[in-house]
């Protein structure tokens, strides 16, 4: 199929390599060129689509594949942020056909929703935990107001919509057309929503402030994250809509400023945006898009201005820019139309496919991915734009399942910060917490710690590390040690049948007295933590027994342990730490 390749100026800021292209199927060109006067229907009408999955197609290309357990590990991490359980690994080893069943189980797992929410923050950048909303003194006494949870929740609000749409297998167009939002009891204290009285937790609610439907781009989280006041005239918000939902970041375009423009104040700058060629090329579409958002204009910090929609301000564009709302040349009646206009834009579905492929491939798409992109986009559209079907299609892509040793496509992935913290927790039960002026929080979810683990903070670090760096290695080591210590001491206090890691020992044995038990225990740890299957007499097991023996005598000198049994527990903790700290733990 011939393709239209729009170069960098049509794609997000993180994609500036020369070979980066925005891939768009030929059959969408005509749609783009239409000059319709009415608000178009969504590109693919979800309600009319059959619920059945797309017809299976021939593989795009045959490559060596990962082993069953390697592939299951990749799927589990990508879809749940944790490694597969022993039971799951056993199932796929016994019957590879279980892979299809396990994928469906993962897509139905509650952690899949969490994964989607966290994943999309890489694009949305709203979970910054640094909102300034003056609500502290306004919460009713006894309301259970928690400022930390409130601030976190504001940033999560748009991401919770994305999560809900994907979890409930709703058409992706709901992200921009939903007449509902997500709120918990903290947001409900201040948001104008119909949250059920007396309940708690995240719930689907409706706005009560005459706010038009618009899914994520009418959320308070979006508008408080992307403030666009003064002479900025809502342009930032318009650009974020374009960047997030259309993969088109105006700010990624280089600007040639003419020295003769004479733009020295707000008035001449505004004039230049409509008359000077260098400015008009972007502002001709950006400014009318921005004109949709004047109902979110606020003049001062405060609950009313920051958290309420203001229909009375919708026409402020008349005074500010004089440009009525429109969508890339198509007339718009205002914010209520915008979601449908976006949903009907072929770039919206292409962007969704691009984003999910880049999440799951951990690579920026290039022209080499064209065939694959078209295949997955077709699967997405034919399903009525269901994200789960897109994921089902992508995880069968040869590039997704290709082995580590494939010469054409070595597909190793690097764990994200989310995967690191959740995998450690799932395996050991260890979740570091820290209570400070911002309340009691999971340390590894704090923005600066996310950066240490290779992630981003949404403010000053806007792209995740594709490489392992020293702070990540250090965090991995210390997290491994701390969590292994926690797990060893915790499980020591439990009966064997309640343990997950130390099933074969009671912390009194030595390698000399019980060599077989040691080997069996280490085999188990390697399997549950890394999916490694090794023989009892393998070098791998021997090395770890040697580690135990080497560190055991030193414990009494340093650890605050009282007897030999505690020294044995800590020695096992170090063996577990060494396995958790294995380089292959981070690479999947």
């Amino acid at each position: 199929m011939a393709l239209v390749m729009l170069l960098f100026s049509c794609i997000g800021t993180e994609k500036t390599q020369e070979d980066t292209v925005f891939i768009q199927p030929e059959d969408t060109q005509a749609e783009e060129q239409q000059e319709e006067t009415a608000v178009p229907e969504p590109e693919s009408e979800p309600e009319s689509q059959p619920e059945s999955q797309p017809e299976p197609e021939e593989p795009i290309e045959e490559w060596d594949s990962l082993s069953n357990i390697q592939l299951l590990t990749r799927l589990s991490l990508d879809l749940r942020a944790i490694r597969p359980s022993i039971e799951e690994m056993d199932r796929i080893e016994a019957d590879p056909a279980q892979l299809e069943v396990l994928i469906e189980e993962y897509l139905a797992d509650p952690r899949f929703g969490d994964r989607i929410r966290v994943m999309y923050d890489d694009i949305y950048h709203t979970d910054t935990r640094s909102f300034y909303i003056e609500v502290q003194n306004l919460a009713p006494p006894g309301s259970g107001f928690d400022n930390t949870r409130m601030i976190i929740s504001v940033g999560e609000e748009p991401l919770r919509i994305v999560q809900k749409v994907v979890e409930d297998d709703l058409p992706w167009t709901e992200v921009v057309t939903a007449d509902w939002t997500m709120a918990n009891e903290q947001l409900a204290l201040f948001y104008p929503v119909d949250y059920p009285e007396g309940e708690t937790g995240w719930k689907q609610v409706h706005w009560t402030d005459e706010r038009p439907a618009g899914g994520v781009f009418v959320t308070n989280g979006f508008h408080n994250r992307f403030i666009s006041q003064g002479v900025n005239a809502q342009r930032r918000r318009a650009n974020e809509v374009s960047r997030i939902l259309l993969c088109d970041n105006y700010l990624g375009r280089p600007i040639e400023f003419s020295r003769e423009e004479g733009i020295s104040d707000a008035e001449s700058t505004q004039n230049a945006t409509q008359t000077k060629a260098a400015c008009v090329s972007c502002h001709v579409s950006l400014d009318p898009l921005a004109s949709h958002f004047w109902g979110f204009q606020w003049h001062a910090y405060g609950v009313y201005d920051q958290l309420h929609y203001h229909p009375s301000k919708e026409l402020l564009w008349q005074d500010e820019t004089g440009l009525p709302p429109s969508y890339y040349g198509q007339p718009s009646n205002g914010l209520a139309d915008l979601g449908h206009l976006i949903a009907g834009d072929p770039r919206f579905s292409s962007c969704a496919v691009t984003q999910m492929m880049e999440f799951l491939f951990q690579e920026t798409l290039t022209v080499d991915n064209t065939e694959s992109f078209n295949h997955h986009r077709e699967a997405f559209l034919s399903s009525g734009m269901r994200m789960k079907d897109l994921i089902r299609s992508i995880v069968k892509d040869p590039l997704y399942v290709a082995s580590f040793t494939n010469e054409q496509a070595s597909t190793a992935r690097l764990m994200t910060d989310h995967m690191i913290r959740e995998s450690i927790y799932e395996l050991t039960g260890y979740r570091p917490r820290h209570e400070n002026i911002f309340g009691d929080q999971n340390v590894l979810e704090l923005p600066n710690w996310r950066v240490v683990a290779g992630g981003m903070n949404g403010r000053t670090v806007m792209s995740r590390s594709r490489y392992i760096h020293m702070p990540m290695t250090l965090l991995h080591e210390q997290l491994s040690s701390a969590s292994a210590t926690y797990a060893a001491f915790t499980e020591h206090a439990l009966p064997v049948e309640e343990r997950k890691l130390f099933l074969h020992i009671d912390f009194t044995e030595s390698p000399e007295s019980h060599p077989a038990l040691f080997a069996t225990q280490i085999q188990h740890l390697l399997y549950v933590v890394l999916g490694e299957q090794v023989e009892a007499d393998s070098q791998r097991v021997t090395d770890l027994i040697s580690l135990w023996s080497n560190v055991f005598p030193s414990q009494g000198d340093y650890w605050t342990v009282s007897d030999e049994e505690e020294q044995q527990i800590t020695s096992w903790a170090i063996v577990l730490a060494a396995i958790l700290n294995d380089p292959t733990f981070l690479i999947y």
Partner: protein
Amino acid sequence: MNRRNLILGSSAALAASSLYPKISRASISGADRKFIFVFCYGGWDPAMVFCPHLGDGDLIDRESNSDTAIAGNIPYVSSSRSIVNDFFDTHYENILLFNGLEVRNIDHWICAILSKTGDTGGDLPDWATIIGQQQMENYIIPHFVMGGPVFAGEYPNAVVSSSGGNQLYHMLNGAFNYQYSGDTPLPATVAPDSRDALHAFAAQRQQALLSNSIGRRKTLLENSVNSLNTLQLSQPHAENLRGGSLDFERATTLLSEGLVRCVSMNHNVSPTYDTHSGNYYTQGVNLTALFEGLHELMALLESTPGTTSPTSSLMDETTVVVHSEMGKTPQINGSSGKDHWPFTTTMLLGSGFTGNRVVGSFTGGMNGEKVDFATGDLFDGGSVMTASTIGATLLAMADIDPGDWALDSSPITGILT
């Protein structure tokens, strides 16, 4: 054996002594040059210090009490901030201003990427990382980031970032002390011997895995090997590997000890230089603090021994780059603020360039004038100075061929010494 391997091989000995033997050199080559990058996030207002009054046709709004003063050959804006006057009067011979630099964007983050990499994507390494990685063998941490944006590109092992706080410092001191608060009593500390054993075990595993890996997996494993090496070598220096704003004492210590080639930091202030309202007051407060810090830095550079000869000081060996991602509009807005503007100033301090000089100029509308890169003089037929121009010039100062980095500008050779 290169210096890094030599250090790694004797890390135990180094733990007892934080100072490395100095390499005797007769003169400073670009390859020995060190760099400090001071970033002023938010977009400073060049009209507060760097852009003097321009006479007829000057449309730029300035503080009411400001005037043009001259230190050596450098005209600057004098106001009630005496520290700025003192700074220029004292150090003009070691100052160079690039005025009228064009950043071609007006978004903070894009401009931050542009000003540090010359590109908008964030995938390319920043200037400090390029310079640092060029001497990877000779520095334990080629580029240390005390704060602010950093772009490591494909050189993650050339960069160690404190990540804006002291997470790195706490971890290096073995204090990942966000322990759970459960009922099970845990040991209070990790046994040092055990930590060494863990390191040794991990290193052994890395090598075993590397031997049969290819492609991306091999790249990640190599990252892992290098990171662990850097971690072990950094351990004795944990005390100085903290985040900080204008913490020049620590920065010069890191440079003087030969641990680091480039240090990057952010001038952390609140409110930042993003002064859409109250421009003069906030910019004034921030610039006062900045120049107080830079004044202290110049004294430290003079008094701190260098690493290339027994008689050299860091002033002989160090170039300081003080910059902001964008400028401010020439005229004040309705909130007494100034908005985003794509022309700005970058200031060099220290050595490695012709000091006592201004390259480029602002027009009365606060656009940038063109420059002849061969001389550094204004020239209508010259070229626009962009962030890439500064980057190319810094790379040339570090003895790195800018042509190897596909920049869309050549260096200003006229200011190189």
